[in-house]
């Protein structure tokens, strides 16, 4: 598949995702996760405006695109809002074959450490599959799971746990 074809396909998916993305925050989302994502959304829609200008806006808000995807307890399912964010990453990544990303999966601290490595990897793979579906070349993506070893928030309790169940999309060049 040629590069331009991938780009077209990605753009199509992206447009679809943008149209169907819910504007109401997911009730299950936590405060921290919600604010991070709504911030990204605001800048996206604000700079983008109506459907046809979204490609032009892409570069200008690239730096503000959320790079952390949060997950529910015991789940590796990407939330509806985040499918949109991942789609925008897919556009950026597939747009430039020199880009590579490392998807870092994480789990909260409960349970066994090595099993949590598995849970973190499942989340990283869920994001990877979406990127692949949207045309990103497999060679541009690597995954690593840190399980519970690198928490974003310290402490016990759901507020910390919900910030730790995540995938960080790390642009490595």
């Amino acid at each position, binding site marked *: 598949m040629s590069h331009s074809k991938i780009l077209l396909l990605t753009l199509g998916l992206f447009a679809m995702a943008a149209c169907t993305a819910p504007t109401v925050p997911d009730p299950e989302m936590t405060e921290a996760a919600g604010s991070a994502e709504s911030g990204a959304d605001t800048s996206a829609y604000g700079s983008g405006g109506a459907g046809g200008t979204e490609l032009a806006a892409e570069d200008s808000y690239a730096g503000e695109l959320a790079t952390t995807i949060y997950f529910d307890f015991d789940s590796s399912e990407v939330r509806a809002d985040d499918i949109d964010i991942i789609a925008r990453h897919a556009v950026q990544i597939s747009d430039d074959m020199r880009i590579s990303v490392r998807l870092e999966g994480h789990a909260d601290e409960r*349970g*066994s450490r090595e*099993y949590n*490595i*598995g849970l973190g990897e*499942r989340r990283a793979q869920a994001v990877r599959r979406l990127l692949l579906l949207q045309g990103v070349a497999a060679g541009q993506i690597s995954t690593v*799971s840190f399980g519970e070893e690198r928490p974003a928030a310290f402490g016990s309790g759901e507020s910390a746990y919900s910030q730790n169940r995540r995938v960080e999309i790390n642009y490595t060049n």
Partner: protein
Amino acid sequence: MLKRAALFLFCLTLSHAAIAEVNLIVIGGELKRTPVAVVPFGWEGQAAQAPLDIAKVISADLYRSGRFAPQAERDMLQKPTTGAEIDFGDWTILGVEALVVGKVIQVDANVYKVQFRLFDPIRQEQIYGYEFNASRGTMRRVAHRAADRIFEELTGIKGVFATKVAFVSAQGQGDNSLYRLVVADYDGENEAIVMESRDPIMSPAWSPDSRRLAYVSFEGNKSAIYVQQLRTGNRIKASSEPGINGAPSFSPDGRKLVITLGGVDGNLDIYILDLATKRKKRLTTHRAIDTEGSWSPDGRYIYFTSDRAGGPQIYRISTNGGTPERITFEGSYNARPRLSPDGKKLAVLTLDRGNYRIGVVDLRNKQLFVLSTGQQDESPSFAPNSEILIYATRQSGNGVLETVSADGLIYQRLEAGDGDVREPVWSPFER
């Protein structure tokens, strides 16, 4: 470096003040302790006193076992150093049921003999006697070995006082994180840093000869399994496949590791890695998470965690492959299996009414017995005598280490490491 802890006794009487400096704190126990006495050792040498108070180390070991109540030195009516000097009446009147006397003799600049004898004051006879050679550097170890022999004579159970514990400690957050792989004596003394990194270190595993440690390190934001010689510090990269390299555990002959690989598509499965040939054999293929493989002591099975039925449960598979057999059925979450060295029991991390706790499965009847009482306990590991387990628990947000006897009667806390201490693994017996 080490925290010197005061003694806290919740369930026991305060009659053991003789042991002032210990890193193991007794936090619970129901067993009645047998009164014993370890008389300060005699000293024949150049300096004013012996290089080490051997009696104090032995007393502390016996006390920490949870089974003995060593007599305080100040209550002793006499301090014999040989059998001939013992007045047994002075000991039976104190209710002492076993008496240890001994001496340290210097024979050269750094050559010593450590002699000790164990007596039954009631029957007025020697039960056991032994003489060790020692240097200043090996004297603490010799004292632990003496305690091992005394313990075994009195209980019939092999002592673990001369064994070691490896664990991981984590300090700082974010870019200031510092992870350490540490080895210490079983009592928390003689801590040595095996490996230090800004990136996470996890899953340490002892080789059967206790000379090597396998572990997972995330140096460069990739997981890899290393095997490191403790004496030289030299290490080899045993596995650095794309994706997950995790959960190493040695085969009983020390030549292979059971490991978890995830591959590019992140399907965690169990593999056996031959350390000499680097050849890998895949044991499981299920698309669920299969991880935390642990070799059975007879070498025939790999016990592992799998969520193929939904939540994580323990399964075992022949090292020749085949269909895995489910081992745990009680509860919704059982993970991190570790066999007792006698092959009779299986330690697991189990979800017990909302709390992650240490459980032991009796492999004869598959019954699960919850041993620990914390909210987030983890990483159980058996002592080489199969009688004690060490695990990590949480105290004010930090990981600390505890031990529990396999019958659940004696709990102790091990004050070791700085920061968040986790993943303790007990060494095998020294060969």
